């Protein structure tokens, strides 16, 4: 297996004029470039979604505030939720999967490079289309009108009767279009992992990241379908006189909920499993130990994938299901705590007895472990249906799922950014600014989302644009809003660090972390075809074997 990196000459080696470079980026089918496009696109939308969150938090900083009108507030939470899930989290996850999976399994590209490009552009146009609603939502009337039905868009609020104009159509069509992209990418990831692994890399010797992305791909294929079907039915209702969700004509509002949440709950795992994947690669390297319990980590991941398909109605404990229905979903939902618990214990056991290096990627992973623990425990509270009758649709549930999506998923993604930045850019990030980002964001995160649980317990529902004084919510909301400022500054430091380091960072070299998986065996950034010679592996940590020929992993596996 080659360790020396061989740069290939080709279109990437010689930089043409700006227009030509842009043309290359737009027409690229290279998995690394598409991965970077996904990531770049997601960071732009992360900033947009963050601005929307900030607008909401300013409005809620004190009771009866008049910063924005109720109409604007309702658009903000709809756009914030839709943007962050579909146009930030998913593109980030797909971007990293695109970039890393072929490199880590010793492949030269994804299985279907042109499908890959098609998928990216579908997702990209979906997001741009959604934002066009600010200008085009009212059609010929000219005034802006973004969707305002909430990110899960419960029927019949989305019917023509209650949602006039075209704002809901922008929401529907943008998810339809980006859903096609998601399915394309999922097929690509699965095909790549099954067909393009290098010699010697059996399924049991794949890096965990590949296993976890394989599970994620399977989930995407299964769950985007119901979402797309629901969007099509909604379009039929709105324009062809259908009655799927038209309650005035015998349709069912509850059916929409089932369709949405059988997508919506596994979607959480679509996003968090790749975050698990990053943590499963980074924690071993910065603890200097092999991952603990590899086979059971794989089993737990696949188990989570299956169980997550049977828990969706825990979003619907208050819609009037029978007591036996509620009881079933309590059991299935709580069952998911077992494989996730196994994962946490295995990460801890990986650190146990190791040498923990507190570099920025590891800091984010440690914070991930702490926050994912709390997110899981509040999840157990919400899984107890009667407790959920009080907590759901309150700020407690908002705090809970932001703990998952920010505290776990985004922290995992930040860890991935810092860990693979040297590989992607060829430069080291600035460690001090990375630490500053970590502390600002962590403090802001805890100010915002720890304290957000409390107004929920005190009876504050989500999605209200204002509230009266005297409910005991005022000071908690003030603290929550202050936390947002810390997070916003943290994100600016993060983006600044990425940009600064791209031009000024120290040269990284091919393997700055003394790591063990194949992507570190090629140059940084990798050449267009990744590996001059396709590597051959004998264990899960091929570079460990190379660095420790006296004690290789394949002695033990």
């Amino acid at each position: 297996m080659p360790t020396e990196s061989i740069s290939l000459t080709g279109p990437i080696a010689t930089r043409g004029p700006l227009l030509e470079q842009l043309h290359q980026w737009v027409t690229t089918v290279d998995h690394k470039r598409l991965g970077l496009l996904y990531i770049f696109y997601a960071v732009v939308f992360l900033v947009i979604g963050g601005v929307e969150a900030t607008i909401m938090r300013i409005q809620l900083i004190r009771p009866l505030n008049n910063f924005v009108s109720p109409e604007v507030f309702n658009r903000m939470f709809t756009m914030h939720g839709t943007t962050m899930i579909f146009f930030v989290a998913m593109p980030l996850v797909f971007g990293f999967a695109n970039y890393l999976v072929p490199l880590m399994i010793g492949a030269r590209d994804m299985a279907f490079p042109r499908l890959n490009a098609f998928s990216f552009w579908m997702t990209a146009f979906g997001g741009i289309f959604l934002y066009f609603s600010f200008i085009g939502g009212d059609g010929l009337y000219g005034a802006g009108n973004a969707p305002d039905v909430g990110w899960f868009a419960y029927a019949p609020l989305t019917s023509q009767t209650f949602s006039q104009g075209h704002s809901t159509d922008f929401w529907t069509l943008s998810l339809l279009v980006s859903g096609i992209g998601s399915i394309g990418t999922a097929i690509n990831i699965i095909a790549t992992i099954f067909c393009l692994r290098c010699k010697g890399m059996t399924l049991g010797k794949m890096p965990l990241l590949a296993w976890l992305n394989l599970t994620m791909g399977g989930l995407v294929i299964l769950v985007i379908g119901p979402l797309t079907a629901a969007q099509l039915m909604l379009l039929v209702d709105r324009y062809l006189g259908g009655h799927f969700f038209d309650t005035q004509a015998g349709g069912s509002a509850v059916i929409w909920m089932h369709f949405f949440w059988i997508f919506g709950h596994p979607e959480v795992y679509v996003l968090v499993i790749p975050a698990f994947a990053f943590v499963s690669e980074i924690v071993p390297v910065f603890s200097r130990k092999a991952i603990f319990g590899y086979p059971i980590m794989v089993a737990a991941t696949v188990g989570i994938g299956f169980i997550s398909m049977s828990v969706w109605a825990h979003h619907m404990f208050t819609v009037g299901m029978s007591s036996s229905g509620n009881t079933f979903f309590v059991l299935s939902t709580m069952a998911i705590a077992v494989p996730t618990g196994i994962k946490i214990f295995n990460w801890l056991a990986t650190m146990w007895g190791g040498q923990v290096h507190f570099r920025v990627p590891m800091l984010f992973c440690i914070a991930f472990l702490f926050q994912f623990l709390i997110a899981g425990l509040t999840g157990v509270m919400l899984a107890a249906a009667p407790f959920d009758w009080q907590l759901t649709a309150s700020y407690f549930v908002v705090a809970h799922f932001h703990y998952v999506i920010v505290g776990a998923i985004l922290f995992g993604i930040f860890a991935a950014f810092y860990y693979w930045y040297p590989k992607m850019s060829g430069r080291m990030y600035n460690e001090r600014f990375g630490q500053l980002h970590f502390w600002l964001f962590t403090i802001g995160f805890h100010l915002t989302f720890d304290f957000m649980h409390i107004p929920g317990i005190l009876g504050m529902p989500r999605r209200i644009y204002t509230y009266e004084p005297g409910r005991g919510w005022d000071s908690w909301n003030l603290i929550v809003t202050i936390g947002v400022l810390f997070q916003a500054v943290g994100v600016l430091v993060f983006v600044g660090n990425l940009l600064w380091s791209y031009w000024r960072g120290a040269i990284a070299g091919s393997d700055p972390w003394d790591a063990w998986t194949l992507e570190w065996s090629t140059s940084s950034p990798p050449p267009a075809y990744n590996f001059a010679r396709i590597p051959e592996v004998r264990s899960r940590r091929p570079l460990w074997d190379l660095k420790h020929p006296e004690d290789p992993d394949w002695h033990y596996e």
Partner: protein
Amino acid sequence: MLIPAFILAVPPLSPTNIFAPASTPAQSIFDLSLFVLEVTGAIFVVVFSLLAYAVVKFRKRSSSEGREPAQVYGSSQLELAWTVIPVLIVVTLFLAAARVIASVQNAPKPDSAIDVTVIGHQFWWEYRYPSLKVVTANELHIPVSDPAHPTPTFLTLLSADTDHSFWVPRLAGKTDLIPNHPNSMWVDPHETGLFLGQCAQYCGTQHAMMLLRVYVQTRDEFDRWIREQSQPAQSTSVISEGQKIFERTACINCHAVAGTAANGRFGPDLTHLMSRDTFASGAAPNTPANLRQWIKDPSAIKPGSKMPAMGLSDSELDAVTQYMETLR
């Protein structure tokens, strides 16, 4: 995070504190929630301690420079332990939750129960007492329930338009009002007083100001309130100027005043408007000045309200407000 949750279990913090139950469903949920908080709190302490210990104890030391730690690949005993123990915890929590689900959802309905039909509208609440022939809006009156002789109130939940959710945290968990999908819930308040809450399912522009007010009264007070609400609006035979304007403009397309020509059903029943402390679903105190402002321009008080401004002149506004004040 869990410790503040326990501290919050002190009632005066908020009139809508879920940890200050005043009715059996809320009480059973509270008891369950304490159990769940204890179990999850214990898990938190154990796992957090392990994490903190690992981070401190196994941090990189300069003495270990250049040497890799011993490589450990797994342990079947450990994996078995941290699979079986969580399974046992999950089974325990599941059984505890299942018991409360059954006790709240499958509770038998005694003959002494009061029936109320709650209809959610954008953005107000309609209450109908079918056996007592009373229709009112936004302020729900129910009797206190003595545990020895329970008089619980059973609510049938309907919606006239979009989804809503009935949530009065101190009385019970929330239940959604979904069009074409009747739901039910029950409460049996153990103390009298005013209990607050609000719509908990996003229902449109003014979801935020769809507030809930539940007046729990002694049985005598409640019976008197029912008697008063069953009367027609007024007994004077002279028709005021305000009433003429009210019946001449579009007001009566949406509003009803029992015993008069007004029989609209789209908006709140106004027969006994002045018996209420607030109007517009709790958005404003029911004072003549507020009422006049509301009739003049509803969106000034509650932007997004479905009630249109009728473009009445100042003198017409005075007259209609005066008429409203006679609806006792």
